[in-house]
């Protein structure tokens, strides 16, 4: 188990704790403290993936979140699978199993690679869309295969064995990033007494200090880091969140942090004392101030062959050597536009390996690091750059030539240098993603050759994130930002003395993005800009030639910065290339918008515990347990679980829905049935102006409704369209009880409040929901009175004493009750309202006495059949927000001459609302009585009309009636009220055409004699 690229000493890894892991089925070993990426490099694994479009072999480029290639599928068993994990961010643990995301049959020998190689030149941007454009109907088929070969990560097919948390947090100062700037900011802010959260996406705090050799107060920087962390950890107002990525910056300083709690330990979260631990947490942080200390990402240079494994970022080379004790090769060539590139060469030399040359794009480099490199004998090639890397599965050589940046051409003959590693640096781009998430665009600074963030309100930037790079300046800026943030949040300034740092003299950098090639970009070997999406410099040039001038269009045409990458490595280079092609400056071209999330977040963390049974609250009536015990089938109505039907077992066979409903319907029409109607919305309305308010909000009249009386009301919006309906009872002169549809309860209450609070605050009235306080039991059928007599006290149930649409107060089964003679079935009916806690007692008493009447519980399906037979509408089923009371034929419920212009009245005379050919509610009787029309079926007048047929309406409710022994339906039909007796046709999806007659909506007992007994 040798690790050929591992150094014997150095780094922050623990060589006494070896770890075994599997990559693409092969076993390797690494050390505690490694990432998967550093361990792969230590083992000399060059090819870690195949590219998205061309299937080219790809290796590790970076050491952090910006890694575009080493995106792996994690997990041993099916349930553990995690897609799109960056190997550079995945800590190594014992038994880790990972696979390349792309590549079939494997990354070394990839079938698509052959196609990509053959077809490479033939696959410009838009290739798939252009090639597979016709026929359009086949695109879905093409896409399936294209996606399979492109192979992004895949979701597990089994249930995630882990649990996740989602928690809310509040603080004065949230510091994002725990490098030198972030640590100083957090320390300064914490000393003021403010609540501070410090998060960092890496395994350890320290940021750039983890890889460097910087001395703070003449001691290694890590000692300062330890000291700061010790103080922060001891402060109860400070929360330290390592392995936590700030993924989204949202409005008003709302930041989502994804904390990976166990990803560094095992595929599944280990149990602690037998208890399940959450795998990760989503912290939803509301911060008074946010300090952005996210640092900067190095930009690679864009040159031919820059995607061959062995091409790395200079800073990544340093990180692997310094932090992980891994030298990712033997012979190094550096191509740089600035002094930082020399850091990699010097670290490489310190590791005892050969530095072939440093190609420096600047004609006369003279910084401090340049001089050190020169003194140590490193060959420096001024005014030149690597124009082409060569090699198949690994860099084999680099072609270096002198270049003229301004003229964008190669000026001298090239020299070929043997090497296996090529490190490039085009300077650093501040990590501004979070500052852009709410739409703020960054500004270009020529002196920094970088975009710096324009900060949203409440955000401060410190260090490299804001474009400040010297360590001393970074520390000072961090401290100042921390103090300022705390002070803005109302906390006193505090003392913080920063450690002394020796400053470094840097030479000026030069702006180099794409390195010129001897051939024009379109003919040169591929120069990659966005490695994850396989976007080349030629692709961007082609896009601009094809007329895509806006950078947002270029992005969409080429896919640059798409997907899980979000343009971390390639965006600036891409913009610079677009700018060159368009002859504009980079600020003129501008940037695309970065969007959350910064790196992929597992859905588990977003959902937290709100899945399975906790996904959505369920509401139960007080009688729910009884329904369950009776074996009821349930239906979801809003959040309510309502009994749908109560199947009986007859001769050992459980009834079907149809059989149960037929039986339940007959029971109500012939004997007595009972419905749990508790879920109906109930609003208690009180105040001297309650009656006036009802008159304004309902379509019909309320002025004369006496105490003890009930009235049905329709409620419209001010556009005249029906929004809800229900009955309202007069409990006292200043006290009413309104009922609403089950689903509409909350909306109606808010509607009443809206009008009262904004339009008629002068009315003295108040509203409160009493839906859950009262249980409602509907006893209905010809035998209802007989049953009620056995249990009712204090109410005279005689027909003349307690009439239809009256309500009375008394006792039912010994419990105080309000009884309403309201009927939604068309039969004699009593709606018994009792306090919810007494409901079960009353319900059971009714059944005890009801046995001799064969009292039959019925569910919502039977309720629907019974009400539809009577032509009673369900708001939201027979209406859809485009139906007026007149469309429903309910002029009887409209008070046209009420003194106040009630909500909806004016709209009824608008030209559109007064049209005669509006869709109007009618009954439909199928010619074939065995047919039950489909709800939603379209209605036509001429079935032989060529397609498209003019459609004149649709079915809103449709059932089979055991009483009428026929299917029947409610429907809306254009001008339907004038079409009574006409025949219409309903073409169905199965090709059949049903014939039906337009009839009255009232199919049963049109005079209402059955309910009025």
């Amino acid at each position, binding site marked *: 188990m040798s690790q050929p690229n591992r150094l014997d000493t150095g780094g922050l890894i623990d060589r006494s704790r070896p770890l075994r892991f599997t990559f693409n089925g092969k076993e390797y070993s690494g050390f505690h403290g490694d990432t998967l990426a550093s361990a792969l490099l230590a083992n000399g694994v060059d090819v870690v993936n195949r590219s998205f479009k061309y299937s080219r072999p790809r290796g590790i480029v970076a050491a952090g979140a910006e890694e575009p290639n080493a995106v792996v599928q994690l997990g041993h068993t099916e349930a553990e699978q995690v897609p799109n994990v960056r190997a550079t961010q995945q800590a190594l643990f014992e038994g880790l199993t990972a696979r390349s995301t792309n590549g079939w049959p494997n990354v070394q020998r990839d079938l698509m690679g052959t196609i990509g190689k053959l077809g490479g030149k033939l696959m410009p941007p838009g290739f798939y869309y252009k090639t597979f454009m016709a026929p359009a109907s086949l695109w879905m088929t093409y896409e399936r295969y294209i996606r399979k070969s492109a192979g992004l990560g895949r979701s597990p097919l089994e249930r995630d064995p882990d649990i996740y948390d989602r928690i809310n947090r509040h603080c004065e100062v949230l510091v994002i990033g725990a490098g030198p700037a972030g640590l100083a900011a957090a320390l300064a802010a914490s000393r003021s007494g403010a609540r501070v959260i410090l998060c960092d996406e890496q395994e350890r705090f320290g940021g750039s200090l983890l890889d460097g050799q910087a001395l703070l107060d003449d001691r290694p920087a890590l000692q300062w880091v330890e000291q700061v962390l010790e103080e922060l950890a001891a402060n109860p107002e400070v929360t330290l969140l390592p392995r936590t990525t700030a993924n989204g910056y949202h409005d008003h300083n709302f930041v989502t942090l994804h904390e990976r709690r166990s990803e560094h330990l095992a595929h599944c979260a280990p149990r602690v004392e037998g208890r399940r631990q959450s795998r990760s947490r989503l912290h939803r942080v509301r911060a008074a101030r946010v300090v952005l200390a996210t640092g900067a990402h190095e930009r690679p240079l864009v040159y031919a062959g820059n995607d061959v494994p062995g091409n790395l970022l200079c800073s990544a080379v340093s990180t692997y050597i310094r932090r992980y004790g891994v030298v990712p090769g033997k012979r190094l060539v550096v191509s740089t536009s600035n002094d930082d590139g020399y850091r990699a060469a010097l670290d490489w030399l310190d590791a005892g390996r050969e530095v072939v040359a440093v190609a420096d794009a600047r004609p006369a480099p003279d910084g401090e690091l340049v001089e050190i490199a020169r003194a140590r004998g490193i060959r420096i090639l001024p005014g030149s750059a690597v124009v082409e890397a060569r090699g198949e599965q690994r860099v084999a050589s680099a072609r270096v030539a002198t270049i003229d940046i301004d003229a964008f051409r190669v000026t001298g003959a090239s020299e070929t240098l043997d090497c296996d590693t090529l490190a490039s640096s085009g300077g650093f781009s501040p990590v501004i993603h979070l500052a852009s998430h*709410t739409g703020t665009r960054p500004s270009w600074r020529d002196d920094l050759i970088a975009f710096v963030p324009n900060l949203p309100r409440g955000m401060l930037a410190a260090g490299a994130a804001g474009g400040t790079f010297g360590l001393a300046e970074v520390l000072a800026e961090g401290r100042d930002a921390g103090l300022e943030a705390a002070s803005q949040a109302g906390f006193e300034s505090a003392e913080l003395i920063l450690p002394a740092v020796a400053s470094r003299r840097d030479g000026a950098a030069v702006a180099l993005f794409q390195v010129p090639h001897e051939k024009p970009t379109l003919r040169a070997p591929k120069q990659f800009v966005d490695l994850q999406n396989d976007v080349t410099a030629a692709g961007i040039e082609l896009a601009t030639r094809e007329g895509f001038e806006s950078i947002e269009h270029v992005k969409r045409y080429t896919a640059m910065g798409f997907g899980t990458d979000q343009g971390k490595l390639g965006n600036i280079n891409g913009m610079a290339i677009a700018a060159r092609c368009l002859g504009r400056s980079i600020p003129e071209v501008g940037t695309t918008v970065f969007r959350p999330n910064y790196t992929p977040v597992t859905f588990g963390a977003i959902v937290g515990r709100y899945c399975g049974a906790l996904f959505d609250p369920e509401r139960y009536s007080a009688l729910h347990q009884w329904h369950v015990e009776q074996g009821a089938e349930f239906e979801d109505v809003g959040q309510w679980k309502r009994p749908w039907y109560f199947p009986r077992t007859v001769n050992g066979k459980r009834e079907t829905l149809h059989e149960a409903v037929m039986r339940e319907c007959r029971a109500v029409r012939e004997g007595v049935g009972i419905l749990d109607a508790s879920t109906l919305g109930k609003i208690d309305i009180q105040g001297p102006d309650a009656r006036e308010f009802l008159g304004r909000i309902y379509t019909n009249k309320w002025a004369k409704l006496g105490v003890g009386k009930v009235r049905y009301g329709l409620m419209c919006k001010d556009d005249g369209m029906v929004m809800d309906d229900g009955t309202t009872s007069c409990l006292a002169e200043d006290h009413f009880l309104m009922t609403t549809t089950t689903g509409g309860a909350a909306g109606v209450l808010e509607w009443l409040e809206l009008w009262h609070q904004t339009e008629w605050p002068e009315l003295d009235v108040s509203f409160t929901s009493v839906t859950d306080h009262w249980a409602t039991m509907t006893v209905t059928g010809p035998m209802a009175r007989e049953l009620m007599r056995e249990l009712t006290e204090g109410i005279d149930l005689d027909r003349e004493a307690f009439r239809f649409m009256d309500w009375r107060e008394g006792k039912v089964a010994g419990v105080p009750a309000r009884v309403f003679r309201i009927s939604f079935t068309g039969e004699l009916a009593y709606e018994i309202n009792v306090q919810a806690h007494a409901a079960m007692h009353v319900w059971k008493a009714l059944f005890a006495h009801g046995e001799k009447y064969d009292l039959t519980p019925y569910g919502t399906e039977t309720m629907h059949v019974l009400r539809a037979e009577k032509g009673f509408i369900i708001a939201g089923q027979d209406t859809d927000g485009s139906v007026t009371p007149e469309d429903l034929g309910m002029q009887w419920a409209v008070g046209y001459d009420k003194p106040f212009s009630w909500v909806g009245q004016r709209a009824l005379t608008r030209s559109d609302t007064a049209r005669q050919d509006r869709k109007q509610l009618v009954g439909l009787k199928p010619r074939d009585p065995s047919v039950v029309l489909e709800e939603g079926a379209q209605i036509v007048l001429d079935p032989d009309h060529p397609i498209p047929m003019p459609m004149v309406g649709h079915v809103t409710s449709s059932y089979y009636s055991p009483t009428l022994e026929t299917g029947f339906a409610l429907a809306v039909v254009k001008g339907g009220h004038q079409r009574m007796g006409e025949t219409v046709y309903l073409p169905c999806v199965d090709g059949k055409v049903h014939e039906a007659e337009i009839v009255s909506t009232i199919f049963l007992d049109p005079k209402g004699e059955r309910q009025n007994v």
Partner: protein
Amino acid sequence: MFHIHCPYCDEWREEEEFHPRGQAHIARPEDPAGCSDEQWGDYLFFRDNPRGIHHELWVHAVGCRKFFNVTRHTQSYEILETYRIGERPRFTRDNPDGVVASAPESLDDSDIATAAQEVRA
């Protein structure tokens, strides 16, 4: 996600507790019957869609159930102020920096209607 100050609870609460109910200061005409179809249609259907300062009606749905007004910048999503029904906004399109001439005062309905006209103009 917005952080909203409820002017009735006098507390900052999360957006999840609220919901928006469209443009604020849409006064229902005093005499609907006297409105032409066009005037009534304007009241029903026509709303501003400004880039910049916008006055909105919100309700503290799972809090105090009170309706109130929000002045929000539609580009930055910044909430400049929240104020009670019947109060006048401090920040307006004509006064985007909210320069205060006098403290917010209570208004009667006709004033609100006038303010709404100004806002919509």
